[in-house]
């Protein structure tokens, strides 16, 4: 298992390097003229050129990249060109918001999707149809619509929760809970729908296996068969889907963070990418890549633990 983790980590590191190079090069292709954007349309060309030179943008892209990399490995990700904030601090300020959302959604999804999926797969009939309809609806409803309805009903109309803003968990636990509950709920609808469907199919498939029939014939209680044997075998594909959902959440978080006015990584990505703020965007890209690799690694390890055959691949 250790060898597997080490192999995957080394591959991950290589991937980080390749993606950082590709991202930097791609970001530098559109001629955004950062100096002009910073100084405004009416600034003279001399000043704009001086500004670009001060930012090091007059050098070849490869040199700029190597310079960025040399600083990045030492933990210095630079300063935002557009707001003058320290990149590491800027991301550290916003990361807890997005992590709160992602952790919340993953927790809700894991619990709700496994309950619904197992329930539907074991009971079938009306329960199954209900879960199926819920899954289709949850998947089909546009995320922005769900979010807007949730915020309008529970925050603006009923005033049960704040409509905007974020309170740090260290500042006040109830404050934190009240600010992340609705966003997590909004993001969970689609996520639960997707994973529940996967769990249901896996459970049905495992229940058809010969060894389940054998277990039944030996007179094991059905609850024990489901919890110990079926669930363990049905979990692997569901975990893979859950991992993908987790990664996909970054995209969904953009919209939810915007509607709830949450200062997270998602809304930050949109704001700074449209401006071409390379120091911030590169840091966000690296964060995403490392996050995706880490999640995949965790999922693979978990699947390998659940199903030793998977480790061979």
């Amino acid at each position, binding site marked *: 298992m250790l060898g597997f983790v080490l192999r995957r980590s080394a591959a991950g590191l290589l991937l980080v390097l390749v993606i950082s190079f590709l991202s930097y090069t791609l970001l530098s292709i559109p001629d955004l003229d950062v100096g002009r954007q910073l100084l405004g349309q*009416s600034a003279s060309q001399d000043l704009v050129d001086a500004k670009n030179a001060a930012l090091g943008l007059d050098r070849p892209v490869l040199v700029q990249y190597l310079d960025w990399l040399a600083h990045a490995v030492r933990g210095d990700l630079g300063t935002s060109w557009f707001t003058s904030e320290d990149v590491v601090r800027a991301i550290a300020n916003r990361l807890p918001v997005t992590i709160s959302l992602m952790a919340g959604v993953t927790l809700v999804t894991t619990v709700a999707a496994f309950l619904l999926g197992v329930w539907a797969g074991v009971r079938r009939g009306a329960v199954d149809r209900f879960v199926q309809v819920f899954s289709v609806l949850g998947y089909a409803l546009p995320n922005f619509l769900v979010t807007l309805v949730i915020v309008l009903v529970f925050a603006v109309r009923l005033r049960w929760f*704040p409509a*905007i803003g974020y309170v740090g968990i260290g500042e006040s636990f109830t404050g934190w809970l*009240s600010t992340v509950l609705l966003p997590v709920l909004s993001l969970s609808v689609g996520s639960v729908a997707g994973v529940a469907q996967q769990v249901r199919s896996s459970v049905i498939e495992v229940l058809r296996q010969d060894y389940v029939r054998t277990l039944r014939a030996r007179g094991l209680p059905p609850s024990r068969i489901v919890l110990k044997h079926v669930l363990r075998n049905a979990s692997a594909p569901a975990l893979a889907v859950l991992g993908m959902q987790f990664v996909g959440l970054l995209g969904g978080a953009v919209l939810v963070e915007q*509607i709830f006015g949450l200062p997270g990584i998602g809304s930050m990505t949109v704001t700074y990418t449209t401006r071409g703020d390379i120091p911030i965007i590169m840091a966000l890209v690296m964060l995403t890549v490392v996050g995706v690799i880490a999640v995949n690694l965790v999922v693979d390890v978990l699947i390998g633990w659940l199903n030793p055959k998977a480790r061979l691949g």
Partner: protein
Amino acid sequence: MKRSATAALLVTASLIAGCSGSGDGGTAGGAPTTLNIATMTLPQSLDPKDANGSALPFFQAVYDTLIKREPDGTYSPMLATAWSYDDKLTRLSLTLRGDVKFDDGTPFDAEAVKANMERFRKGGGAQAKTLNDVTSIEVVDPTHVTLVLGKPNPAMLYYLSDAAGLMANPKDFAQDDTLKTRPGGTGPYELDAGQTVIGTKWVFTRAANYWGSRLPYDTIAISYFDNETAIVNGIKTGQLDAALIQDADQQISVESDPEVKTVKQEFDFQGMFLFDRAGMVTPELRDPRVRQALNHAIDRPTMLAKIRQGRGAVTSQVFGPATAAYKPELDTYYTFDQAKARALLKEAGHESGFTLKLPRIPAIVSDALAASLQTDLGAVGVKVVWDDLDPGSAVQRIFKDRAYSAMVMNMGQSSADWVAVGEVVLPGAFNMFGYTDDTVKKLLPKIQGSSAQDATADLQALNEHLVTDGWFMPFYRMTYLHVSDGSVTIKPQDGMAVPAIYNYAPAQ
């Protein structure tokens, strides 16, 4: 079931109690008061050389300006108590307060003014050009300073009440980046670094030893949002105290809430700038009849009704109602008359029409506006082709490459005539081809050498010429809505879309 519902209510009530304190802008019981303002402007830094119009409130909190601009656009003393021009209007003498200190105790004096202005000019920020006409700054004594101008500039007092007048502590100039995140001025508040998250929320707390009269709030928090939906929800729930809403649909949404208080202001106008009047990119535009035809071809009242839900006023002139140049009758100079437009195009020899390629930044040109212009101009034979641009590369293509002969823009209407002239008539960003004509050349020196009141006739003549010669194709002035959760009274600021921080007070 009933018990669990009650428990849920109790839990939610405690949650609400835990989070509702932030929006409390009231004054009861002498408790510290906070004003929560929402903004969609992200300041580049808090260094005055990076200041610009819509970001000004961030700066006003920590810096004073030399001259204060009142809500109605008149000037009153701030760091300068008096000012006067010589007869030639090329020497502007300022008398300064002698009792003002920066946060660290350094006295504010004439040397500080000189140091700030010289740095501002060299700093190369967006507004540095406003001091282009200043050739030198003479320090007479600690409380007297004279700005020497190369030529008269009727907008100089306006600039000193704006970014160019912001005074920072010269001690912070030694290290160039200090002021970006740690501003130091003489203003009514100080940045609270502990509570501020740059890029998200800036918190300013009252400066203990402020020389001037206290503003009503102990703390001012300015939060950045990238969309108006969140702002409107924050106002409706009282989490935000004040904001500016530009989008017509959001305005309607926020007005539906009985507790929300609103104040209207017409500030930006939307229209097409026909930059290429010399016909360098689109030769057809060289003929004033073609520009007039374009103006007659569009249905302004319908555009206003459909695109802005009727929120605004149609206009054919670029000067706003607060200026001396403004003539009410010019608002309706170009009627919707496509037959006349076709006749004018025929007269100009372009009856078969031509193609007009326009840049399109979706944030400014909505689908409805793009379709409306395409249909109206298409009906008289002018084929509009939209080039979709992202805001990043748009600046480059439009202003540096000069790739387009015209562009749809939203532009603020300054109350200072010469500021407006500088923006749209003089060669520069919004007259990028540097076009001029004999009438303009004759009128500008006369306007420049006198005050707006004395130059009213010439300013109006200039305005009339710009309209009749078709320099621009304005559609309408847009009504913006200042909204509050009911706890704040907001006075709109003349010459600025966002109110100055001095313009907020607890509602009675």
